[in-house]
């Protein structure tokens, strides 16, 4: 019998990569929706059957994640985080300038590298870049930075900084041609690639990414560790004709080109809805979890040559690792599941990345489960995962869409917020009492790209190295900007280094468990403590 918050076998031995240190521990989540101040619904019918993303970011300088919840036909809603460190989750709705309607998703990103996080709002209609002014105030910036917001049904975003650029490159995923409401099949609209004008702080006219296949998630990721991220696009096969999942080669100064059979790419056709990435097996290459309907996918490189670059061939290991998450695990329904946002985080601080998946029926699809609980899949030392959503307390039967795992009260334990379609958003505080240690980082470098998007943060302890890629994109219609969390297991200290986006390597630096650090390029790690305490 496993008790939440209690380790079955506690072998406080070596190392943060707790393969030898711990058996699985189930964290205890406490739903605090009613007391948190969060009261919001993502509303709408057909044009908002997808989307519902949440963006988490700090906009008032207290380094606690604030958030924007997309609203669909309702206005998007901004919440300032007023929690105290280790305390109950507390938010206050404020007018920020972000309260646009028809918002399907939002991603935080410091577009102009001024240190104030900006947001890109994905909308059914014109997308809008909202420039952060500080103090959680935002203003429209499309005209000032040459950003063409278009007039599409936008559903995905990914961003990177191409080599030498002063501005990011932003990919926008667009869905169905919404004017074809009676017969939308085969009407996928073009995704757009917003590249900067060379050496300028503005965007060139967008480049259509042809062909486009109704993207619902995008991620710039360095899948082959070449130093140049490629663009993964997860597409909804419900609406495309002749489509498949896509991987675009995006190299500075070159037109984007698709990876194809000659590169080892194999067609995969799923109801692609979300992407989560993480190096699960410690080989230096990220794995990708792709959400869909019924079976979900977990891809790993099919072959990793000892020398030379790997081919763009991926094997599906979802079944082998126990993350197909194809059917509700509680609630009594046996019909297949519908999965949306996915995210890897170490929710029990045992040194192993776990997986959260938001679930919910598209809209009155009787062949799929209506009571479809969110998944919390805990990674075990052998690399397989175990479902713990119900034991942990996050098995909501609301109609989930977007979500974010973030440490809202800066206690070193990853909390959770989920946006539900035509239902109230829910928020849970991670109240795990387990002994696992943790550490949090933010990464900074001089402009441009002050947040070092494209960097890798590596943590070494006990002879093992875990790593995370700094990305903008993925999930379902929403992203997180803020502390990068690592569980350390029993280890009281570790070393950290940053592999910067330009390919240079930082030195290994000693750090202590249970603390937050700012990693500034060329400097020693700077410790930081939350100043608002309960």
């Amino acid at each position, binding site marked *: 019998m496993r008790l939440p918050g209690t380790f079955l076998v506690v072998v406080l031995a070596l190392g943060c990569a707790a393969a030898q240190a711990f058996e699985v521990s189930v964290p205890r989540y406490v739903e605090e929706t009613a007391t948190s101040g969060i009261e919001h619904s993502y509303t709408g*019918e*057909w044009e908002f*059957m997808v989307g519902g993303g949440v963006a988490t970011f700090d906009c008032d300088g207290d380094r606690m994640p604030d958030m924007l919840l997309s609203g669909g036909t309702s206005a998007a809603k901004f919440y300032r985080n007023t929690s105290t460190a280790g305390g109950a989750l507390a938010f206050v709705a404020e007018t920020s300038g972000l309260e646009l309607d028809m918002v399907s998703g939002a991603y935080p990103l410091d577009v102009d590298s001024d240190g104030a996080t900006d947001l890109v709002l994905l909308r059914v209609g014109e997308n809008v870049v909202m420039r952060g002014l500080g103090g959680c105030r935002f203003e429209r910036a499309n005209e000032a930075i040459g950003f063409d917001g278009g007039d599409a049904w936008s559903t995905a975003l990914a961003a990177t900084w191409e080599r030498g650029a002063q501005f990011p490159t932003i990919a926008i995923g667009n869905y169905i041609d919404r004017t*074809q*409401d*009676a*017969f*939308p*099949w*085969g009407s996928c609209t073009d995704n757009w690639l917003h590249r900067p004008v060379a050496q300028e702080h503005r965007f060139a006219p967008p480049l259509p990414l042809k062909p486009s296949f109704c993207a619902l998630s995008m991620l710039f990721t360095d899948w082959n560790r070449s130093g140049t991220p490629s663009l993964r696009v997860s597409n909804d*096969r*419900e*609406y495309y*004709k*002749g489509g498949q999942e896509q991987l675009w080669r995006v190299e500075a100064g070159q037109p984007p080109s698709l990876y194809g059979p000659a590169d080892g790419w194999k067609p995969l*056709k799923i109801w692609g809805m979300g992407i989560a990435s993480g190096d699960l097996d410690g080989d230096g290459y990220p794995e990708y979890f792709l959400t869909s*309907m*019924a*079976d979900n996918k977990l891809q790993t490189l099919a072959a990793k040559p000892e020398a030379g670059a790997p081919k763009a061939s991926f094997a*599906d*290991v*979802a*079944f*082998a690792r126990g993350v*197909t998450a*194809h*059917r509700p695990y509680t609630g009594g329904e*046996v*019909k*297949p599941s519908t999965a949306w946002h996915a995210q890897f985080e170490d929710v029990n601080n045992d040194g192993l990345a776990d997986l959260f998946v938001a679930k919910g029926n*598209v*809209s*009155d*699809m*009787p*062949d*799929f489960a209506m009571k479809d609980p969110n998944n919390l899949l805990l990674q075990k030392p052998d690399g397989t995962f175990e479902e713990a959503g119900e034991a942990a307390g996050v098995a909501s039967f609301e109609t989930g869409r977007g979500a974010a795992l973030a440490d809202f009260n800066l206690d070193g334990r990853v909390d959770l917020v989920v946006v539900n379609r035509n239902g109230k958003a829910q928020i849970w505080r991670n109240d795990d009492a387990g002994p696992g240690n943790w550490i949090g980082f933010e990464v900074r470098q001089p402009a441009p790209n002050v947040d070092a998007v494209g960097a890798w943060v590596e943590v070494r302890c006990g002879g093992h190295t875990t790593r995370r890629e700094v990305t903008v994109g993925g999930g379902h219609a929403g992203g997180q900007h803020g502390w990068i969390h690592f569980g350390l297991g029993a280890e009281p200290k570790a070393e950290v280094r940053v592999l910067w986006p330009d390919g240079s390597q930082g030195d290994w630096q000693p750090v202590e468990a249970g603390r937050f650090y700012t990693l500034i390029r060329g400097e020693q790690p700077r410790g930081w403590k939350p100043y608002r305490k309960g």
Partner: protein
Amino acid sequence: MRLVRRLMIAVAVVLCGVPLAFAGQAASDQARSRDALIIWHRLVLELVRHTATYSPPVASRAFAYLGVTAFEALATGSDGLHSLAGQLNGLTPVPARETGQAYDSAVVVQAAMAHAAANLFGNTGPTGQRALKAMARKAGTEAATGVPEDVVRRSEDHGRAVAEHILAWAATDGGAVIENMGFPLEYKLTDGPAHWVPTNLIRQQQVPLLPDWGRTRSFAMPDGAACGLPPPPAYSEAANSQFYREALEVRDTVNNLTDEQRAIARFWSDDPMLSPTPPGHWISIAIDALEKEDADLPTSAETLARLGVTLADAFIGCWHSKFEHDLVRPLTYIRRVIDPKWEAILNTPPFPEYPSGHSTQSGAAATVLTAIFGPSYSFQDGTHEADGLPVRSYPSFWAAAEEAGISRLYGGIHFRSAIERGLDQGRCIGAYANALRTRN
């Protein structure tokens, strides 16, 4: 012309209020009825692709009931058409039209098809529901244009009554309820190397699709066993056995595919959820032929009814044989006995190998269509043009059926015996549909 584009154009024409049959001309009652018949079939080809329970057997069932619905709705007002009641298993006479009252056949068939499609696809997603409602609203308005209001009301009521009758009949066939996309929650695999085992890493497909489908009620043939097959070649791992030789043929063929063979395998792949499925492929072929020939209403109605019936019977008969013999797939055998790293180019379907379902249903379809259009009817097949696959040309329906059959060997998912005997089984099943009396 692309299927989807044709359907979109047809929908657009309906939405614009332009008569479907001959824009700018007064359409005849027969032409309006035929167009209502065809446009609903075209929409259903798309719904099949986007409704998760619509695996090929389930799709074939829907085509059969839709074809019979339209045929019976028209037969009640035609001196020339002979009802299928009493000929199809369990079908009783549909409600008759009121003597002495006027009906409009286009309105009747439109209302019948709209009602039947909405029920058969009641489980489709929100987009499909929108399309169904939009089509019913607009095509209904179009069919009723210029028809007296009382005739419209009477005709719609009759069309719905016929559809209700067919749907009530359908509800008793054993195939109406599909759970978990057709994959049983529990299933015991047959022991022994000769038998089917899962061939992929999809959790849902670790059991076979619809193992009881062979026991659903058939339409024109007596039951699922009516066109049974001899056993497949005896299972053996000996290099001089026929079983081994057939497996080696699959391995060697796939490993040395020509571009043409690869194109054939892709063309007839007809994957569920990514295409109108194999039965939908043949419905698409038939619709093209009817339009090309500007076929009259009786011919159109009997073609789609006979074809739907034989496709459904083909899947019932084929599934009966599949689970009777429960044979291992080439992928499993070749990897175990010949080449552990061998890959097929198509995804191996999640059910037993013998016979080939595409072969059985293509043989049945060719049998029916040849009887209607003739043995040397040449045609072009653009079913998958919207998905980027080029149009293919055939000198006859049987040439297409044989290519569909051998495509499964090129794709690495069937042995030769399953293809050849599947085509034979299709001939047998198609003969039952051809024996139906449709004219007075």
